[in-house]
């Protein structure tokens, strides 16, 4: 739930108007000809690869996207409702490297991919499988999309994300997911796979991403229309200017998706941050990232669309204190800002380049704490506890009272990683740091992992489709 607003309604409207002006007067490049054809038919002015959007066309498309939808899981108990109020947490996405305390930083492999997929599955706080928690670099690039989709379906029964690497890869991923749910006709009314096509900032979409938008919309599968601006490098250094540009990009993608299939579910997805001006590179653990979350959370609410922002983000190179404090700040703000789909909610460090096994566990704890904060406070006669206070009276204690016994589990969050023992006990138990405990915890999770059941015939059909 949104608990923090950084801009006035008037300021949000100014950003919206500027975005519409950018779309109408500056335009957006779509290199993919089929996308341009669809947009031209829908009323856009096309000049070469550049597409100009009349404001009415944009406003119209925005009204068509639903503000809530259900994403179905292989295990129906794990279905997820994505709307404008609740928060869904999703695993890390796309790192080419992994790191852990035992083996250090390295190019990620299929083994890491499977391990982190299992961890995502085992972590109660992760609601949706990112489908690419790290790159399986030892699988040939052209085979990865289908392979990752298959393995995610096999190792987990939670809802999943799918490939956006072009129309064909997207289509195959959707068809693979559809196999598990009774075919492509069934899933059109019952979304099962969600994707994240990204803009090529500033103001363009490449063939792959535009193709993915079309594929997901054709099958009416949800998509996060995403823009990652690097303020000061790919967009203006000012927050307002970056958001105006970013918003224009996202709106252009939403228009395309709605033209392909009216009412196809959209998540407004904005993951901008700023450039570190000492190097000219992306910085994600910055306070500006959190400021962008706050603005974008409000913009998504203005459009009445579910919102994806930020994550547990850090620029640190290992799972250390910097990783923890940056993640705590960015993830807290993402939730306070009203984020409804929080990708990269666990594991990310190194500006998205590395997934840390230990940080998966650290962030699991942060998510747990945030979920508790989000639950808020219940105020009623029972929770106000006047009778109990009267009964115990001055100088009594509540630890042994039945009221405490009845309420503490629902009122208090029980940490899964944090240490709250006294110092002597802590020393006796090995004086382990949070990183060391995290290391032990992910190993234990992998040991305890049990593969969810997948029907043999479906498995065989999936493998056949994957290798086709």
């Amino acid at each position: 739930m949104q608990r923090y607003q950084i801009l006035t309604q008037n300021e949000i409207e100014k950003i919206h108007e500027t975005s519409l002006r950018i779309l109408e007067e500056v335009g957006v490049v779509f290199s993919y000809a089929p996308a341009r054809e669809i947009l031209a038919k829908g009323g856009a002015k096309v000049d070469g690869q550049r597409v100009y959007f009349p404001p009415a066309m944009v406003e119209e498309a925005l009204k068509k996207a639903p503000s809530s939808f259900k994403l179905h899981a292989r295990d129906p108990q794990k279905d997820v409702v994505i709307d404008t109020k609740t928060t869904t947490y999703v695993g890390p996405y796309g790192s080419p490297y992994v790191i852990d305390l035992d083996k250090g930083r390295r190019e990620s492999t299929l083994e890491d991919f499977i391990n982190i997929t299992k961890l995502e599955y085992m972590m109660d706080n992760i609601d949706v499988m990112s489908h690419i928690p790290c790159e399986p670099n030892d699988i040939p690039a052209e085979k990865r999309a289908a392979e990752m989709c298959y393995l995610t379906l096999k190792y987990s029964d939670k809802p999943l994300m799918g490939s956006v690497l072009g129309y064909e890869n997207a289509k195959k991923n959707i068809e693979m997911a559809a196999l598990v749910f009774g075919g492509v006709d069934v899933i059109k009314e019952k979304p099962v796979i969600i994707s994240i096509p990204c803009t090529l900032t500033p103001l363009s979409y490449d063939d792959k991403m535009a193709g993915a938008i079309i594929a997901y919309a054709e099958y009416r599968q949800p998509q996060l229309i995403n823009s990652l601006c690097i303020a000061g490098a790919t967009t203006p250094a000012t927050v307002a200017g970056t958001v105006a540009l970013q918003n224009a990009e996202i709106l252009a993608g939403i228009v395309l998706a709605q033209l392909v299939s009216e009412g196809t579910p959209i998540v407004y997805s904005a993951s901008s941050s700023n450039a570190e001006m000492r190097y000219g590179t992306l910085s994600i653990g910055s306070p500006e990232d959190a400021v962008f979350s706050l603005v974008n959370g409000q913009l998504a609410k203005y459009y009445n669309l579910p919102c994806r922002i930020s994550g547990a983000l850090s620029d640190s190179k290992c799972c250390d204190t910097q990783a923890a404090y940056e993640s705590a700040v960015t993830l807290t703000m993402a939730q306070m800002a009203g984020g409804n789909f929080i990708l990269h909610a666990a594991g990310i460090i190194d500006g998205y380049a590395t997934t840390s096994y230990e940080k998966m566990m650290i962030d699991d704890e942060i998510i747990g704490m945030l979920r508790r904060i989000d639950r808020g406070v219940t105020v009623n006669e029972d929770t106000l506890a006047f009778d109990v206070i009267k009964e115990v009276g001055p100088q009594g204690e509540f630890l042994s009272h039945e009221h405490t016994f009845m309420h503490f589990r629902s009122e208090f969050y029980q940490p899964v990683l944090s240490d709250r023992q006294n110092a002597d006990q802590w020393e006796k138990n090995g004086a382990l740091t949070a990183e060391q405990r995290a290391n032990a915890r992910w190993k234990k999770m992998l040991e305890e992992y049990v593969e969810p059941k997948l029907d043999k015939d479906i498995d065989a059909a999936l493998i056949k489709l994957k290798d086709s």
Partner: protein
Amino acid sequence: MATLTDLCQSIVTGNVAQAKELTQALVDAGTAPLEIINDGLIAGMNIVGPRFKNGEMFVPEVLMSAKAMAVGMEIVKPLLSDTDMPSKGTIVLGTVKGDLHDIGKNLVGMMLEGSGFKVVDLGIDIAPEKFVEAIKEHNPQIVAMSALLTTTMPAMKDTIDLIKEEGLKVKCIVGGAPVSQGFADEIGADGYAPDAASAAELCTKLVG
């Protein structure tokens, strides 16, 4: 009256209009073109470099200094023959096949020009054959490749392989967010730089 010290200062502060004005004034006053370049324009960049490295100056400021130097160069260049133009060397630059990201690459190009190299920017989505063609045409000391996508990194290896196959004598360097020193070593590159400023340093070292 315009002095070389003033020109040098306008480069350091990234004052493009002033750099243009002062260079023209110095030319009009009869100062030798080589002197303007060495004691004014390059002298300015020689102050900028270390300040950037120390964290006193930031990328946008360095780029503005490079722009100020470039406008000065534009004025002085026609007064010199090609052989008189001081240059650290030629670098062919491009984003590899399948990859459309060019901002990082452009940044590297600007930093390289700012530190005195001639840069031939081939653009984005450059196939190995195109790199080879450009090497044959421009005869550079270094070819610099960029990739932002893990899926296009293999194109760096393809390019290096083709360059070697063709027997071309040129140093190959690679960069981009997912690229690492380990990857560079693995594909037989001569160098890797983690950011634009280090790329300029790396190139200076490679031609030195």
